[in-house]
């Protein structure tokens, strides 16, 4: 049986899930490098993290570009990370029943966190009493 190909050589061919997973890790990585490093610079360097207050997010999210940016970051990072966790479990957990329990949990957690993040990004509407207040540092 063929298991865990998240690491290792490039698949010679194939259209199966593991081949897709192998390519997904690399293509999503290329996007994530830029998305994550820009995200870190914006929220830890050009603006201190203690200033990323509700007011700042409210102002930032008046532009749908940042909601889309953060949603792409959420989606790619969560799928890349959870797929990595799946590969790690595949590597170390030998028992059939434990594999079933853990891999199902990974799937369920992925879905729950994807929904939580997506719902937050879509439904967030700034409290009108806050605007047009200036962003403040905490």
């Amino acid at each position, binding site marked *: 049986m063929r298991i865990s190909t998240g690491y290792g050589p490039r698949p010679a061919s194939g259209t199966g899930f593991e081949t897709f997973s192998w390519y997904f890790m690399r293509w999503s990585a290329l996007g994530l490098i830029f998305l994550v*490093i820009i995200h870190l610079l914006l929220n*830890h360097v050009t603006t201190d993290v*203690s200033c990323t207050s*509700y007011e700042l997010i409210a102002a930032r999210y008046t532009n749908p570009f940042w909601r889309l940016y953060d949603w792409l970051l959420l989606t790619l990072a969560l799928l890349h990370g959870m797929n990595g966790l799946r590969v790690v479990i595949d590597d170390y957990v030998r028992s059939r029943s434990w594999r079933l329990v853990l891999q199902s949990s990974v799937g369920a957690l992925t879905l729950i966190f994807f929904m939580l993040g997506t719902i937050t990004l879509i439904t967030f509407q700034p*409290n009108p009493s806050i605007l047009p207040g200036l962003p403040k540092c905490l």
Partner: protein
Amino acid sequence: MYKGQSGMWSWLLHRVAGLGILLFLLVHIVDISLLNFGPTVYDEGIALFGTAIVRLISLALIAAVLYHAFNGVRIILIDFWPKAVRFQAAMFAIVLVVTIVCFLPMAYFVIGPVFGWPTGNMPAGM
């Protein structure tokens, strides 16, 4: 196989860093979800990130992200350009150097406020 050589350490660091980043990502999705509980609740949560202890954790996160990103590029190069495997050890050294070079200035901004160093990223009046 390659036990104890750079290949093993680059692989192990990549995996540990990845799992650490994933753990933080799950926490981060929850803390961002506090947005929909209003400004008081959200700001209380975010204020934690400004404490010295969480700033230290942020340093670990930034180091993990930079290493995982640059070593990921090294992996992709080896995967798609077979000859690159000859330079994998040299590329690992480059990954470590680039990680440290990028980490140090970012670390200054993250840890600076704890010691009162000028960072210029907390606009006056904000």
